[in-house]
């Protein structure tokens, strides 16, 4: 029996710049079975109603229709070889901010589980999110599954394949949320766009600004990933600390020629929607996600 506390390990996927670029310019299609499953059990402040859940589902659908990775299931419990495999997911409880453990969380194949909820975030912050940590014990095969989910590049930090993570949305009076009932259309609105913030935080759960395979491509505050530099025409400045593209970084909205500030730059303005751009998608590819080309959001 081996016991590992592995909360600093990051997964990976094979990143091939040429393929990444080809994917960006290819035709639309649908991914196989990649799925983001939201878990509301820690939404203790009842931030989410049906309308907000619909917005979250729309944001997840954007990634589900584009990411094609196959991820092994994490199934704790007795194994055939006599090991009792254990897996404890840890993350920031979205309702309290405290570290939360979920013992023996089962993660289906091709699925990320994202715990979501709302609480008051200081300083007007709209949301925060990222991949979860974990501890695991059991057979070597089980530990490999937990660590890599079957993705070959995780162990050398060229790929990323988490079990999921957590997102917290602000629920205090400093934020006036715009909850769109149809995120496919663009219309004038006031307030902070829940759809845009959901896309942004899911980007962090998927590793933008958080994965080792993202961070190890930052040199002197410049992101050097092949797919991203192909889209941008050179290295891309990052925000100090590397958690985002630099403020004001622009690209074009996925599937269009419409210029827009990237979704994964560090700012957002009230009354403005920020969809994922080609550069944001290229960032996912550089982390290691396999992404297929796509039509408009």
């Amino acid at each position, binding site marked *: 029996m081996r016991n590992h506390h592995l*909360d600093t390990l990051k997964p990976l996927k094979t990143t091939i710049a040429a393929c990444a670029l080809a994917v960006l310019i290819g035709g639309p299609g649908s991914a196989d079975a990649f799925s983001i499953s939201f878990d509301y059990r820690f939404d203790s402040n009842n931030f989410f109603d049906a309308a907000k859940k619909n917005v979250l589902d729309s944001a997840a659908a954007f990634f589900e229709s584009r990411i094609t990775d196959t991820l092994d299931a994490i199934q704790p419990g007795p194994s055939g070889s006599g090991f009792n495999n254990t897996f404890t997911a840890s993350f*920031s409880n979205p309702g309290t901010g405290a570290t939360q453990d979920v013992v023996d969380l089962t993660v289906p194949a091709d699925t990320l589980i994202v715990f979501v909820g709302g609480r008051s975030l*200081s*300083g*007007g*912050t*709209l*949301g*925060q*999110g*990222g*991949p*979860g*940590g974990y501890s695991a014990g059991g057979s070597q095969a089980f530990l490999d599954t937990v660590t890599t989910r079957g993705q070959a590049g995780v162990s050398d930090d060229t790929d990323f394949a988490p079990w999921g*993570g*957590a997102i917290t949305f602000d629920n*205090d*009076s*400093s*934020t*006036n949320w715009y909850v769109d009932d149809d995120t496919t259309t663009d219309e004038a609105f006031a307030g*902070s766009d829940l759809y845009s*913030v959901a896309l*942004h*935080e899911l980007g*962090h759960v998927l590793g*933008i*600004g*958080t994965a080792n395979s993202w961070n190890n491509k930052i040199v002197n505050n410049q992101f050097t990933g092949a797919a991203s530099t192909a889209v941008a025409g050179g290295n891309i400045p990052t*925000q*100090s*600390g590397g*958690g*985002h593209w630099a403020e004001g970084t622009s690209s074009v909205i996925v599937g269009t020629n419409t210029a827009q500030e990237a979704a994964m730059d*560090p*700012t*957002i*303005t*009230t009354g403005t929607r920020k969809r994922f751009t080609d550069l944001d998608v290229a960032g996912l590819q550089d982390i290691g996600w396999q992404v297929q080309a796509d039509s408009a959001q």
Partner: protein
Amino acid sequence: MRAAALFAFLLLPAMDADANDDAPKPLMQVFQGLSARENWRQNPHAHYRYVLHRRCYCPAPNDVRVEVANGRVTNVTDLKSGKDLPPARLSGYASIDELIARIDAAVARKPDSMRVEYDRHMGYPKRVHIDPSYRIADDEIDFTIESVTLL
């Protein structure tokens, strides 16, 4: 005689109600401590304005002038447009005392990374970058303060 009466009047509000403590309390207090940080906390700054440059995933503007009266934010001006924010938007901004409390809370939780620099003379937090968790994005406390003016 008149001067003595004025002196007595000034002292009156500060007299301790406890009969056993007959030492008069001063009306004004100035603190100059060994810790620059304590200079802000110990001196009674209730009315002031400051310029804030913050980096957070929050609605713009993030470069603003904040005015504080009686310890509460009463006005915020967007430095780019020169316009004051509507009152409903003020709750997204903080007094310096509230920012110090936020720093203290974050430090108490043992962040993954932090740099906090206080102004040498007044003791307000001048440059702050705290990342509570490398694995969580947009949880950072990241701002600079300058041009603090007591009102």
